[in-house]
C-alpha cells in the first residue's frame, strides 16, 4: 500500500495507543494542534486528553515526567518536537533515563520512548537544522533508532515500546512527506539490525535517516556509470549492528559513510572506526565519509544545500575510492 512516511508513523502510533492502555502520547502540540508534523492529527478526539497530552514548553520536565511515568508502570511516548529542543531535556535523558538501571543495581528500568524530528533541508536555519543523533548514540543505557523507510516508520515503534529500556527515535523531518510502499503483508520489524536496502559489489554506502535516500540516489547515478554501490541503512544507531556493516564491507571492500551530522566526532566517525577495527584487512581503500560541512546550517537555499551531504558528493567520494578521479 502506498502511503507517506507521516501516515506510517501515525499508523504505528495509533496502533500502539489502541492496543495498550499503558501507552500515552505527551509533548508540545500533540493534541489540539494535531502534532507539529500533523502526525497525531485527530488523536485527541479519538483517545482523549488523558492519553494525548499537550505539554507546556518544558522539555526538561515533560521528558522527565515521561521517565517517572515509565517507572510508574506506564508506556509513555514523549514527543520532543525536534532534536533542537531536546537539548533542553538532555539532562533527563542522559542523567536519568540512561543511567537508572545500571546505577540502581538493576532495580529500575525506564521503558520510555522519546520521539523527535531531526535534520535539515527545509531552510529553517541554524537553530532548527541540527542532526545530533550522535550525541544520543554516544550514551550507554539508551537505544537510538532512526527509521528511514515506510516499513520502519510504521513498524519500529512497537518494538521500541516493548523494549524495557529507553528508546530514542529520530524521524528526519524531510521524510514525513516522502511516499513509498508499505510491505504487504505487513511484517513486524526489529530494532536491532541494519539493513541492506540495495545490494552492490563495488562499494558500501552506510547511511541512516535522511541520508539513506541520498545514498540510494547516489547509487542510482553510480550504476549508470557501471559502479554497483551497496546501500546499508543503519536503522539502529545504538547499539550499531556491526555484523551487517562488516559483512557488506567485506563484500565490497570499500565504504563511504554518509551522515548529516557534522564530521567531527560524528556517528560516521564511529562507523569508520569500527570498520578499521573489524574489517581492516578487507579494505581496498581508505574508508571515506560524506558529512555536513562544519558550519551552522545557513538559511539561504544554495548555502544550505552546500552544507549538507548530497548525492554528487557521495558519487565523488565513491569515485575517489575507486581511483576514478
Amino acid at each position, binding site marked *: 500500500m502506498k502511503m507517506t512516511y507521516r501516515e506510517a508513523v501515525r499508523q504505528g502510533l495509533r496502533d500502539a495507543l489502541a492496543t495498550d492502555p499503558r501507552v500515552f502520547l505527551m509533548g508540545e502540540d500533540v493534541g489540539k494542534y494535531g502534532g507539529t508534523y500533523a502526525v497525531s492529527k485527530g488523536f485527541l478526539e479519538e483517545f482523549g486528553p488523558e492519553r494525548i497530552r499537550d505539554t507546556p514548553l518544558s522539555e526538561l520536565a515533560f521528558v522527565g515526567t515521561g521517565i517517572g511515568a515509565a517507572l510508574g508502570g506506564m508506556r509513555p511516548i514523549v514527543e520532543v518536537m525536534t532534536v533542537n529542543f531536546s537539548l533542553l531535556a538532555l539532562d533527563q535523558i542522559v542523567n536519568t533515563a540512561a543511567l537508572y538501571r545500571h546505577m540502581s543495581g538493576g532495580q529500575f528500568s525506564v521503558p520510555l520512548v522519546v520521539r523527535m524530528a531531526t535534520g535539515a533541508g527545509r531552510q529553517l536555519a541554524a537553530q532548527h537544522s541540527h542532526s545530533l543523533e550522535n550525541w544520543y548514540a554516544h550514551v550507554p543505557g539508551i537505544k537510538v533508532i532512526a527509521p528511514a523507510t515506510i516499513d520502519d516508520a510504521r513498524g519500529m515503534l512497537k518494538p521500541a515500546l516493548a523494549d524495557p529500556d529507553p528508546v530514542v527515535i529520530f524521524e528526519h523531518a524531510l521524510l514525513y512527506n516522502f511516499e513509498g510502499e508499505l510491505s504487504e503483508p505487513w511484517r513486524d520489524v526489529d530494532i536491532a539490525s541494519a539493513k541492506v536496502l540495495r545490494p552492490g559489489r563495488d562499494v558500501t554506502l552506510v547511511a541512516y535517516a535522511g541520508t539513506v535516500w541520498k545514498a540510494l540516489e547516489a547509487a542510482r547515478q553510480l550504476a549508470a556509470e557501471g559502479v554497483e554501490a551497496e546501500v546499508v541503512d543503519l536503522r539502529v544507531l545504538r547499539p550499531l549492528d556491526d555484523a551487517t556493516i562488516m559483512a557488506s564491507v567485506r563484500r565490497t*571492500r570499500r565504504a563511504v559513510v554518509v551522515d548529516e551530522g557534522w564530521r567531527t566526532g560524528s556517528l560516521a566517525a564511529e562507523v569508520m572506526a569500527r570498520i578499521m577495527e573489524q574489517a581492516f*584487512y*578487507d579494505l*581496498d*581503500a581508505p574508508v571515506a565519509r560524506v558529512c555536513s560541512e562544519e558550519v551552522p546550517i545557513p538559511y539561504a537555499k544554495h548555502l544550505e544545500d552546500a552544507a549538507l551531504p548530497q548525492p554528487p558528493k557521495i558519487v565523488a567520494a565513491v569515485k575517489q575510492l575507486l581511483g576514478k578521479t
Partner: protein
Amino acid sequence: MIEFKLPSLGAEMDEGTLLEWKVKPGDRVKKGDVVAVVDTSKSAIDVEIWEEGTIYELMHEPKETLPVGTVIAHLLEPGETPEHAEEEKRRMAAEAKAAAPPAAPSPAPVPGLVPAPAPPSAEARVRASPAARQRARDLNVDLAVVTGTGPHGAITIEDVEKAAAAAAQPPDRATEMRRAIAAAMARSKREIPHYYLATDIPLARASQWLTARNEQRSVTERVLMAVPLLKAVALALKRYPELNGFFRDGAFVPGAGIHLGVAISLRQGGLIAPAIRDVDRKGLDELMRALSDLVGRARALTLRSSEMSDATVTVTNLGDQGVDLVHGVIYPPQVALIGFGKITQRPWVEDGKVVVAPVLTASLSADHRASDGHRGALFLVELARALQDPEKLDTGTG
C-alpha cells in the same frame, strides 16, 4: 668490529635474498666458514666469510632481499669487547651521516635488472590497501612488483590477484637466469672491446698419453681430456698474467691466483661458470675430482659463494656439442675467455708428412683494454706447446 656485507656472488648479482643463517651471535668463525645461504637469481649459494671473529649480531632476517653491500652481520674482532663494538657502530653511524651526500657510490651499474630496492622508509613504502596486503601475503605476491590502480596509485586486491595469476607459472628461475645472463653479456659486449684469436692444436700426443694413463686406473678414476686442457690453460696463463684477472674502475687488476671459471650448462637452461681454484697448482686427478664435484653441485644448485665469484678467467668447452670454433663473450669483469671446440681427426702435417691426427681449435676472446693481440697470440702458442708435453701437465699436489 667487522662489518660483514652481503657479497656479490657474480657480476650480474646486485641483490640477494637471505635464505638462512648458518651462524648465530656468539659463534666463532674463521675464514671460509659458511655463515649464510643466499638466493641469487641463479641458485642458492653458501656464503662464506673471509674474516676471523665472533658473530656479534645478525642484522637481517631470512626472507629479506638485500642489495649487495648491505651489512648483514657485525662480528667482534678477536679480543674485541661488545662495548667497543657499540662505540664503533656509533662512530660509523656518525661518519655515515656526515658523509651522507653524495650517496655512497653504487656498484657498477648493471642494466636490465630490477632496480635495487630503496632502503625502507615511509616514503618508499609500497602503497597498497590492507586487503591487498593480506591477499599478497596469502598468495605470496611481492607487492614491489605489482602495479597499483587504486586511489593514488595504491595497489588493490584485484591488482594483487592479477599479479598472482600472471605469476601462476612455477617461479621461473630459468627466466631470471636468462635475464641475468642477458644483462651480463650485454654489459660485456657494450663495455669490453673484444679481440678474437684462434689456433689449431694437435692432440695426438696428449691423447695417447692420457689413454695410457687411464688404462692403469679404474673407470671412476679416469681423467677426461677436458682436465689436461684446463691445466694447460692455467700454465699458459701463468706466463701471460694480463689475461688472468679483472678490469675494474678503468684498470686491470691481476687475479690473486689462477681460478678457472668452468662454464657449465644447466639442464633447466642457462649456464653458470663456477671456479676451480688454483688450477695451476693442482694435479690432474685432483682437478678431475674438482671438476666432477663442481658439475654435480652446479646442477644441484649447491655451489659456494666463492666458487661463484672467484673465477679469474673462464674456460668454455663446446666440443661435446660438436662445434669447431668458439667466439666467446667475456664474463665481466674478467678480461679473457678461452674456448675449445671439438677434437676431430684431421689431416695434419708433421715432420713434412701429412698424417691423420686429433686436432682441437682453441680460441681466445680477450679484453683489448687489458691485453693486446700480440700477447694473446703468444698465450695461444704457449697453450698449444703445453699440450705437446702432457707429462708436465700432471704436476701438483694430487
